[in-house]
C-alpha cells in the first residue's frame, strides 16, 4: 500500500517535476569543481556609467577570487572569498583587508551586487522551502516559477525569493523580497548561451527595485569549467602579490 503510494508520487513528478527537483537540477548545472572566466561589468547610474573588466576563479562552491584588470583606475583591486571569509586587496593601499561579516551585504566595487553575491552558495537549496507556483510555455521551453521561503530561523537576509527557471536548468529571473515581502531587487538573465560546454546565463542584469535608472550588468566573455586550478591562487599572499 505504502509502496504503491510512493510509485504514484514518482509517476506524478515525472510529468511535472517538483520545486525541489527543479532547483537541485539548476544547482547541479552551475556546480563545478572549479571555474575560470573573463567577465565584464557595467555599473549604470543616472549620472554615469562605468565598465570594468575582471578575471574570476572559483574552487568548489564557496571559494572565489576576482581580480580587476581594467580600467587602469580599478585594475589591481581584488576580492578573495574563502568559505565565509572575505578579503579585499587595494593596490593604492597595497594592503589586504578582511571584511567584517556585517559588511558583506554592502555594495561590491560600487555595483548593485554585494560581497555576499560573489559565491553562488547552495543556501537557496538548503535554507529555503520551495513551492512550484506556475508552469508556462515560452517558445520551445517550459518555464517554471518557483517560490522559495526561508526556513524558520534560517540565517538569510531575504524574506522570499522567486525564481523563473527554464527547462534547460537556467534561471532566467530571480526576484529577492525583503522581510516585509516587498520586492527589493531583481536579477534578470538577458542572454543564455553556451559557455565551456554548458548552458549558461551569459548576460545578467541586477536591478535594485527601489532605485530606478540604476543597474549592474555582468557579461561572461569566456569561461572554462572543471580545469585544475593551482592551490596558491586562493591564498592571501597571492591576493596581495599575484604570481601571474
Amino acid at each position: 500500500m505504502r509502496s504503491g503510494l510512493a510509485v504514484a508520487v514518482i509517476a506524478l513528478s515525472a510529468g511535472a517535476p517538483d520545486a525541489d527537483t527543479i532547483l537541485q537540477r539548476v544547482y547541479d548545472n552551475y556546480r563545478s569543481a572549479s571555474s575560470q572566466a573573463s567577465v565584464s561589468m557595467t555599473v549604470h547610474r543616472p549620472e554615469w556609467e562605468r565598465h570594468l573588466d575582471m578575471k574570476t576563479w572559483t574552487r568548489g562552491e564557496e571559494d572565489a577570487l576576482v581580480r580587476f584588470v581594467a580600467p587602469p583606475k580599478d585594475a589591481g583591486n581584488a576580492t578573495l572569498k574563502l568559505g565565509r571569509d572575505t578579503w579585499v586587496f587595494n593596490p593604492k593601499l597595497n594592503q589586504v583587508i578582511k571584511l567584517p561579516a556585517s559588511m558583506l551585504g554592502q555594495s561590491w566595487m560600487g555595483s548593485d551586487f554585494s560581497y555576499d553575491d560573489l559565491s553562488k552558495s547552495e543556501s537557496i537549496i538548503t535554507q529555503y522551502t520551495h513551492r512550484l507556483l506556475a508552469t508556462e510555455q515560452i517558445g520551445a521551453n517550459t518555464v517554471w516559477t518557483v517560490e522559495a521561503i526561508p526556513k524558520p530561523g534560517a540565517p538569510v537576509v531575504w524574506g522570499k525569493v522567486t525564481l523563473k527557471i527554464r527547462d534547460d536548468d537556467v534561471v532566467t529571473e530571480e526576484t529577492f523580497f525583503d522581510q516585509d515581502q516587498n520586492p527589493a531587487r531583481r536579477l534578470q538573465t538577458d542572454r543564455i548561451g553556451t559557455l565551456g560546454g554548458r548552458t549558461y546565463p551569459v548576460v545578467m542584469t541586477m536591478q535594485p527595485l527601489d532605485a530606478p535608472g540604476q543597474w549592474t550588468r555582468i557579461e561572461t566573455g569566456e569561461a572554462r569549467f572543471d580545469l585544475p586550478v593551482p592551490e596558491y591562487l586562493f591564498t592571501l599572499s597571492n591576493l596581495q602579490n599575484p604570481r601571474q
Partner: protein
Amino acid sequence: MLAALAWRNLWRRQQRTWLSLLSIALVTALLVFMLSFQLGVYATMKQSTLRLFDGYAQFQPVGYAEDPGLDRSIADPGRLTEDALGIAGVTVAAPRVNAFAILTSGGRSYGAAVVGVDPAREARVSSIAATIRSGRYLTPEDDDAAVLGDVLARDLRLAVGGTVTVLGAAGDGSVAADVLRVAGIYHSGVPELDRTILEMPLARAQDAFAMTGRASTVALGGTSLGAVDAALPALDAIGKRHGVALLDWTALEPAMHDVITLKYATSMLFYLTLVAVVAFIILNTLLMSVLERTREFGILLAIGMKPHQVGLLVWLELLALGVLGCAIGLAFGAGITLWFEVHGIPYPGLDEILAQFGLPPRLYPMLSPFTALIGPAALLLAIAIGGVAPYLRVARLTAAAAMRAA
C-alpha cells in the same frame, strides 16, 4: 464713575480682596516661571543636540535625507556657503563630504561614516572639536590626519598617532582608499557619534571619494537656534536658487521634535487646568460677594442705576482684581525667572552630561515676551469670560425684589 466705584468696592473687604489677589498672583507667577523654565530646558536640549553634529540647519542635495549617498552632492558648496553667510543670524556654514567606508587597523575592520570637514568652520558648527579626549582636533594645515570617536578607536585598538586605513566606494563608483594618521580621539557622550564617525580634512576626502569641488551637505551655525530659525525663509530662497534642500532642526532631529511637541502639549493641558481652577475660585468668591450685596444693588437700582450698569460694576470689580493680581504675579514671576536666568538652577546628576556638550552644569529658564505674557493673558481671559455669570445674575435684578431679599 463705574470704575471708581468698582475700585472702592474692592477695598471694602480688604481681607477677601488680598486673598483673591494672592491666589491670582501666585498662579500667574508659577505659570510665568514654569513656562520659562520649560522652554529654557527645551532650548538647551535643542541647542546642545544640534551643536553636537547636525548644526542649526543644513543644506542637502534634494532627496539626500531619504537616500544619502555620494551620487547626490552639492555642486558648488563654495558659492552656497558664501550666500548663506550673507544672511543675518548665520555665522558659519561648514561644507562636508559624508561617505561610508570600512576602517581597518591591524587586522580589525569596522564600517564607519567618514566625514570630510573644513576644520576651522567645523569647530564652530559642531562641538566634537570641544570633546577631544586625547590628541587634538584637526587643523587647517592637516592633510592625512583624522579624528574619531573613542568607541570606534577602542574597537579598532587605535590610539593617537596610529594609522587607520579607509576603504570605500567613491562618488564615481571607483574604489576610494586612503591611509590616515589619528590626530585626536573625541568623546561626545553620544554613542551613535562616538561609534560611527571619523572626521578627516575636507580636501583630502574630496580627493579620495572623487568629490573634488563638491560637498554632501553644508551645516549651518548661528548666534542662536532662534536666529537661524528666523533666517530660514531667506536660506530657503538661497537653497532654491542653488537647487538644494534646506532642512531645519525639526527635519534634522525629528525624534527630538516629536518629544518636545508631546511634552509641550501635555504641560499645556496642566497649565490650562491650573488657570481654570483659579478662575473658578475667584468667581466663586465674587459670586458670594454678589449674594451678600443683593440689597445694596437693590438700592443702587432704586436710586436710578440701570441693571446693566450694576452688572458692569460687578464685572469691573472682577476685572480689576484680575489685572492687579496678574500684574503682581507677572512682576514676581518675571523677577524670580530673571534671577534664575542669571544664576541657573543646579540639577544634580546632570552636570556630567551637560559638561559633555560644553554647557555649565545648570539649567536656565528663558524669559521671553511669550512665556511672560501667555499665562497672565490666559488667566485674565478666563476670569473676564467667567465674569459674565455674575453679570447676568445682577443684570436680572429688580429694585423692589432685590431690596426685599434676605
